[in-house]
């Protein structure tokens, strides 16, 4: 089962589903033949895509929309906020190549404020699967919900056996007493590597795959804070408005504080290139993450073994 097959099965079983795209067909090339008029390509028109989806939802449809994450959430932002948000319509947004996944495209294509923007819309839910298997586990519940949703599409192959998904629940991969890494989306596989390396240094390292950024699993975050370890937020997003901000909001709401190291993009877009080169350059490979955490703890990162990130481009647009 892949993304396209999941949509196909869902749409064939549920007549309310319509699949729409602003001419981004990389993952859904075979659906026009299967869905006929329930596949609607509006061309390169993100705003009209959203407005038309709102109209279809008014008629009882559940539209699943596809566009590049950056154009979907930025160019069409006011349409999402005004038509889908104020309307509280069950429109499901699938954003392609979010965060580092736009690799060589350059800053025009970098959706690294999408979580911040989408979670600011009342009623909107926001999800970031760690890999394809995680995404396939998450999507049925997201599409079945009556709420609007934004999903950071991630089709990278899984190197981890994920737990079943529950809306609003994080996946607790490991608990640790020295360090806890919080992450979401494609950096999950790098944090798995980072955890291994830090564990090898004798640290007790926890790891949480957030999966859902809104609603946020507040209980899971508070449990980490209660444990008193260093918390590291790892995200391919601007530091403003993403996971680090979400954690800060949770802490303040509960009149708590914590020692937190944010690994995110600050006040600049990232250097474009092959995905593995981007992660190297920006310091987000598993090895970089482990070294940055060690150095933050006042220890030499030199003991962290060198090694390349094992990453290849998934698809280009």
């Amino acid at each position, binding site marked *: 089962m892949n993304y396209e097959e999941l949509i196909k099965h869902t749409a064939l079983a549920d007549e309310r589903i319509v699949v729409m795209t602003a001419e981004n067909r990389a993952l859904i090339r075979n659906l026009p033949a299967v869905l006929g008029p329930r596949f609607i390509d509006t061309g390169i*028109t993100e705003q*009209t895509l959203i407005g*038309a*989806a*709102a*109209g279809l939802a*008014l008629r009882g*449809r559940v539209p699943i929309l596809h566009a590049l994450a950056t154009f979907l959430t930025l160019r069409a932002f006011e349409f999402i906020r005004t*038509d889908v948000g104020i*309307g509280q319509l069950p429109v499901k947004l699938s954003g392609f190549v979010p965060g580092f996944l736009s690799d060589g495209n350059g800053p025009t294509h970098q959706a690294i404020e999408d979580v911040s923007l989408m979670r600011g819309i009342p009623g909107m839910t926001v999800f970031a699967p760690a890999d394809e298997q995680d995404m396939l586990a998450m999507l049925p519940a997201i599409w079945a919900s009556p709420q609007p949703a934004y999903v950071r599409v991630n089709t990278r192959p899984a190197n981890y056996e994920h737990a079943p998904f529950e809306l609003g629940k994080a996946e607790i991969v490991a608990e640790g007493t020295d360090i806890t890494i919080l992450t979401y989306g494609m950096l999950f596989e790098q944090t798995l590597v980072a955890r291994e390396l830090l564990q090898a240094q004798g640290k007790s390292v926890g790891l949480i795959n957030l999966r859902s950024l809104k609603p946020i699993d507040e209980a899971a975050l508070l449990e980490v804070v209660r444990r008193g370890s260093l918390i590291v937020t790892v995200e391919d997003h601007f530091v403003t408005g993403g996971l680090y901000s979400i954690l800060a909001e949770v802490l303040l709401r509960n009149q708590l504080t914590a020692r937190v190291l944010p690994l995110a993009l600050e006040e600049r877009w990232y250097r474009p290139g092959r995905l593995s080169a981007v992660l190297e350059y920006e310091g987000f490979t598993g090895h970089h993450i482990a070294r940055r955490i060690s150095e933050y703890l006042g220890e030499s990162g030199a003991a962290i073994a060198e090694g390349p990130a094992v990453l290849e481009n998934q698809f280009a647009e």
Partner: protein
Amino acid sequence: MLPEQQQKLQQLALRVREHIVRLSTDGGCFTGASLSCADLLVYLYADCLNVRPDNLTDPSRDYLFLSKGHDVPALYGTFVELGFMDKARLDQHLSTDDHIYWHPNRNVPGVEFHSGSLGHLPSVALGVAMDCKMRGQDNKVIVITGDGELNEGTVWESLLVASAHKINNLTLVVDRNHFQANVATEDLIPLEPMAPKFEAFGCEVRRIDGHDFAQLEEAFSALPFSDTKPSVIICDTVRGRGLPSIEARADRWFCNFSSEEVQELLRELHSQEATTLTSETLTVR
């Protein structure tokens, strides 16, 4: 159109204009923009569309989307006169006890979708029209835009898509009152020649006098104009129509009159003799 029917619609439109004038005080409203489309809305709801207070959730009803949402006093006035809405709700204008404010919203039965941000409802109406077509229903889907609203690229984007998908059950109606917020359209972003622009975007176009009920009937009863193209009806109208003292004035878009002036204007509506207004009106909203 029979003379008695025309007279009935004129009487209805006059009462709608009274509602608009009464809403133009104590906080005010977009008076000029509402008066220009009062005849259009009265015709559509009273004489054309299959939408009534008792079929507002019927999927086979006709749909009207008001994309130029600031003319909502004309819509609510029409709703009151045709029994969609209790007249007492108009007394709640700008009160936080109700939802009667400067733009339409779905807390008022009969409003198909909220608007206010220009250039949105052509695409929403497109989605509704696509679904009607997908289900083999032949209901009309009408979206009314302002002429200033045609500055927004999404109006044209929606028509490109509608035309590509042969959505001929969609009709875009332009309330061509020749003014945008603060200035005449032709002095800012000229829109003429207008019909060829829509034709170039793949639409079948008619242009009529938007205050003439016979012309409205002739155009709307000919819908759809094409088996393959979306329809466009350009309604030439006058901003502030019905009140000579404010007609076709750039500074009578948003009006907040004193209660004495409202009384004067109500007299003017019936006599057509211009009154003198001194209120400062807000031209930037």
